[in-house]
């Protein structure tokens, strides 16, 4: 395949650093959280230096995740606002899953699936944070009544499972749609990638709506 001469910057350095801090936190929280959720997975606690360390560190990583995700919200909320063309895309989602891009309506910078991931996490992460505070035994063990803590731990588990499911979708989509991972590691996509997956965004770029700075020579 011919290597395109120009590339498009999709995620800036700040975007990428912020994303990967969030990702590392999320993975660590998933591992430690699942260890405390299901006995079959309790062995994962060894990755954190044993059960006591895992129990101690999990809430702190959770705090970091919230801060980090707030950073992502600030950077990405605008491009994730739901538009009319998202509904068109959703209607043709059966073509999306079989890679039949010809039948998929052109979308902007993010498609409805990406927006779903963004807004799901925007809802779930604060839910996890606040229910997590209630069950943070060391500092807030006496702050609320036991019945409140019981409800909090149930909501925390359900929200965590929902977040993990969304995360599986997110990770798989990044693997499935080739060269998406490079956008979040090296920051750029090719014009062909933009044409194939985010045609409206490419048109917007070409017409200079996002400034000329996002189109560069290939590094």
């Amino acid at each position, binding site marked *: *395949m*011919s290597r*395109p*001469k*120009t590339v498009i910057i999709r995620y800036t350095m700040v975007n990428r650093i912020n994303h990967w801090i969030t990702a590392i936190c999320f993975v660590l929280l998933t591992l430690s959280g*699942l260890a*405390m*959720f*299901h*006995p*079959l*997975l*309790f062995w994962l*606690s060894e990755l954190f230096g*044993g*059960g*006591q360390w895992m*129990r*101690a560190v999990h809430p702190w990583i959770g705090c970091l995740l919230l801060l980090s995700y707030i950073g992502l919200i600030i950077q990405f909320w605008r491009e994730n606002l739901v538009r009319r063309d998202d509904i068109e895309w959703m209607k043709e989602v059966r073509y999306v*899953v*079989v*890679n039949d*891009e010809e039948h998929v309506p052109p979308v902007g910078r993010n498609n409805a699936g990406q927006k779903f991931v963004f807004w799901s996490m925007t809802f779930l992460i604060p839910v996890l944070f606040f229910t997590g505070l209630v*069950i943070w*035994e*060391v500092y807030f*063990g006496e702050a609320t009544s*036991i*019945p409140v*803590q*019981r*409800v909090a*731990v*149930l909501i925390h*588990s*359900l929200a965590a*499972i929902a977040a*993990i*499911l969304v995360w*599986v*979708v997110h*990770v*798989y989509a990044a*693997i*499935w*749609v*080739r*060269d998406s991972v490079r956008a979040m590691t090296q920051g750029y996509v*090719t*014009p*062909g*990638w*933009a*044409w*194939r*997956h985010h045609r409206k965004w*490419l048109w917007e*770029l*070409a*017409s200079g709506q996002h400034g000329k700075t996002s189109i560069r020579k290939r590094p």
Partner: protein
Amino acid sequence: MSDLQSQDYVRRSASTMTPPKARSYEDQVAKLIDVSRCIGCKACQSACMEWNNLRQEVGHFEGSYQNPNDLSPDVWTLMRFAEYENEHGNLEWLIRKDGCMHCEDPGCLKACPSPGAIVQYANGIVDFISDKCIGCGYCVKGCPFDIPRISKTDHKSYKCTLCSDRVSVGLEPACVKACPTGAIMFGAKSDMKDWAQERIVDLKSRGFENAGLYDPQAVGGTHVMYVLHHADKPSLYSGLPDKPQISPVVEAWKGIIKPLAVAGVVLAALSGFFHWITAGPNEVTEEDEAEGERVLDEAEKTP
């Protein structure tokens, strides 16, 4: 506290393995606390401190004989004093020895995420194995009686062991040994129930029509039972739960949701894998690249 031999276990927290139950022929033990014979001397409290070698920090006078004010990692049993004015306008001083009830179906054990941190022995005693405790506080949420307390020092959960170390060598619990009035009895659960019935008959003959045994069945019965003069209203005794049960919230969390959630995550990952090997990756073609370049070039030409 004590970790007896694994073959003594009939239940083990966070474990999918079947406990051996090798000693299930053993008598189920029980402690019977007859509140009608209690004089509130706190000998049991002192004996508990002494045997387990625990000293609660000296606190403040709170206007009651109750001292310390609550259970703690260092207070495994506590005399709770309640003043109750009955329907005849007479004062009744209801004194209850509080501590772990050693449920037959323990909510703490059900909630615990750490394998083997909470166990139940063949004789019915529920014990915390401290070196496996991670300090998460799930046992606190599982317990229907508000018993376990998490230490702020070592972040482990503590409660009455029913002197499992003493019982395993044929001694009665320290509190039983110390009780001067025989208000605390210990033995086979069936014997304790028989003895309780005699006490209840006696109490009824003395005008306590509602006297009865507190052995709540919603938690499978308990290995610490009370004889109450007001068995119809257990909550009179410093908030002893009228109908204790493991919260349905905890049952849902540790019951159906646990396997469903794990299955859901596995299914999602497998769906991804099978999508990959059927639909395959979504790759950019040469035509796409040509089209993409064309769009950018055209834009460059039009000023």
